Every structure is written in C-alpha cells, then in structure tokens.
C-alpha cells in the first residue's frame, strides 16, 4: 500500500521562519509568556488564509470528524492554530529556564515507571498531538539518554533554530533519510545500550508503508515503520502524550503496551498499532484542538 497523493501524507516540511521564531523567543525572555500569547493571537489570523493546506485540513477535521457546524469550525481552526502556537511558546519558555512557572501533572502508572527505570531500552511512541517535547527534560530523572527519531527535513529545521540560539536540545536526534538505512542500526544500537527511542506513530511520509485503521470514526493511514521497529527489535513500548490542560499547565499521559509475543510474526506490529490508535483516540477525543497533523489525515 503506497500513498500517491501528496495531500494524503506529510511532505516533510514545516512552516515558520527563523526570524518569526526568534521574535517570539525575544518576547518570552523579555516580557514573559503572556506577551508572546498576545502577539500570537494576531499571527494566527495571518496563518488562516496564508496556510491554506493546513487551514483546509483542520476545517475538514472539525466539520467531518468532529461534526462541528460552520461557525464552530471557524472558531476551531483559529483555536487549533493558537493552541499550536501556545505549545511552541511554552516549549521555548520551559527550555529557557522558566519551567518553575509551569505545573506538570503526571499520569504514570507503576508498570510504566518500572519499565522506564529498568536497564532495558524502551521505544516511546507519541504523536503530533499536544506538546510531547515539553516533557522530554523530565525523562532525565531516569538518567537515560533519549534519542528522537524524525525525518531529516524536520531535524534540519530544528538544527537551524538551535544554531541561531546557540543552544543544544535536551535529546539527540536520529534523522531518517531516504537514501540510507543507517538509522535502523542506530536505533537498534541505542536500544541495546538501554536508551529511550522516541518516535511519532501517526504521521505518514511519502512512499512509506502503512495500514489503514479506524480512527475517530473514519479510516486513516498510519505508518508501519515505528510499530515494525518496536516489535522486531523486541523492545518494551510506552505510549506517551503531553497535553496542555490550562494556562501554564500540562499533563503527561503514559501507557505501557502489552506483550505481543503470542501474536503471529507479522501480526505483532498490527496488534501494537491497534493499541496505539485506541490510546491516541482516547486522548484526542478529550483534547481535540491539540491535533497538529496538517494534511488530509483521514480517507474522507
């Protein structure tokens, strides 16, 4: 199953210039998060007409998937972009040493804590939902290194921004490139050294193998890669999502994936994906405005 419509997968590029980003960094540092939110309220108005693909995908998400009316959907599109902006601002604020201004609630069951504390490598599967990066510094408490697997395009964008700020991030990146398989070996080696591998399980890139799953009432394509890697490399899997629950307040939700050893060989990844999709659906239903996949995610 190979996707061939460019609107049906992510093209690997993210919107937003370095200058704009740095303006927000300046505001956060000098005047605080509130000032940055105020500027964001106006910037979002620009994004609605000038990011038509993103606007259209969120409009369809609101109208078809969430079954909102036109007026509510208009408000929803604005709130979705505003929410994305807030999550970026909060991430910058936390990484700039303002984490003590925030409240973080942990929903971390005992089985998850036990696995994260163990010497084993763990695959942590998240989504382009909420604000997972804001939680990455908290994994330090387990004294294990986190390696984030992401598309090379995404990595280059982040690297550019970090270089302009003369900063290093709290995690190391394993970039996925089209012309090399070396990332597979890096992932395997990191797991064998007991590191965490963080990977997003929701976003499909061009030519990626995928499976259609029932998600929020409609079929949607999910990438097979993260699930094949986790099951083949026999690593324990934790689903992790960070959601914004209020002003300067976040909740970190974790769930331990079950043992799939009893499943048939090539059904293990399917079973893992099913559990992931069910967990993701539960959190997305609770916080629908924090969904940040700006392409035609559902086969509607």
């Amino acid at each position, binding site marked *: 199953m190979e996707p061939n419509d460019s609107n049906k997968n992510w093209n690997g590029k993210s919107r937003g210039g370095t200058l704009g980003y740095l303006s927000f960094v300046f505001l956060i540092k000098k005047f605080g998060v509130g000032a940055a939110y105020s500027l964001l309220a106006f910037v979002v108005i620009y994004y609605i007409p000038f990011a038509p693909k993103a606007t259209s995908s969120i409009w369809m998400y609101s109208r078809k998937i969430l079954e909102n009316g036109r007026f509510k959907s208009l408000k929803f599109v604005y709130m979705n972009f505003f929410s994305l902006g807030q999550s970026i601002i909060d991430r910058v604020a936390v990484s700039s040493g303002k984490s003590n201004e925030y409240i973080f609630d942990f929903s971390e069951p005992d089985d998850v804590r036990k696995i994260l504390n163990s010497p084993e490598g763990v695959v942590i599967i998240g989504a382009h939902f909420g604000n997972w990066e804001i939680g990455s510094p908290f994994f330090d408490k387990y004294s294990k290194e986190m390696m984030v697997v992401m598309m090379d395009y995404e990595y280059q964008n982040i690297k550019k921004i970090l270089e302009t700020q003369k900063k290093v991030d709290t995690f190391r990146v394993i970039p996925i490139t089209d012309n*090399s*398989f*070396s990332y*597979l*070996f890096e992932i*395997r080696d990191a797991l064998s050294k007991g590191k965490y591998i963080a990977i997003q399980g929701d976003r499909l890139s061009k030519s990626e*193998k995928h499976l259609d799953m029932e998600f929020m009432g409609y079929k949607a394509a999910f990438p*097979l*890669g993260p699930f*094949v*890697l986790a099951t*083949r*490399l026999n690593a324990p899997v934790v689903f992790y999502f960070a959601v914004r629950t209020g002003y300067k307040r976040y909740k970190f939700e974790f769930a331990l994936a079950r043992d799939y050893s009893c499943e048939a060989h090539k059904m293990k990844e399917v079973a893992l994906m099913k559990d992931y999709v069910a967990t993701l659906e539960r959190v997305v239903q609770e916080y629908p405005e924090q969904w940040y996949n700006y392409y035609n995610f559902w086969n509607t």
Partner: protein
Amino acid sequence: MIDSALIEKINKILAEEFEVDVAIIKPEAPLMETLDLDSLDLVDMVVLIEHNFGFTVKAKDFVGIKSFEDFYQFINSRMNGA
C-alpha cells in the same frame, strides 16, 4: 568455496521469511528486488541474520551486497570469523 549446505540453509530461511518461492533465488539474482525488500524488511533481515547465524550486523556490512552470491559470501566470511 561456500558449502552448499550453507547456501541451502540461507535460501530456505530467506524464502520462508520473505515469503518467496525458493526456486527464484539464484546466486546472480539481485537480492533486494528478488525478495522485494524495503527499509522495514531490512530490520527483519538483520534480526534474521543475527538469530540464525549468531553474529552482529552493522550498516556498513550491507554496502556492496547486490546479489545472493554477495550475500552468501558475506555470511560465509563472517561465520569464518572475517
């Protein structure tokens, strides 16, 4: 010279894992195309080699492996401690 029993073992494992007819596996045939491998299948290939032949595979090991003959040579040389 590679032991024919080893070649037979490799062919059997590959045919079972990647669900192809063992008859299409010829020494000169291209490995990736014949087995219809992509990057995800490579994970299976690595696990399969390590599990069945007892040595660790690195990314650079795959450089230069084009045909089944190359693959047999690679397995044979690593099993003989090269």
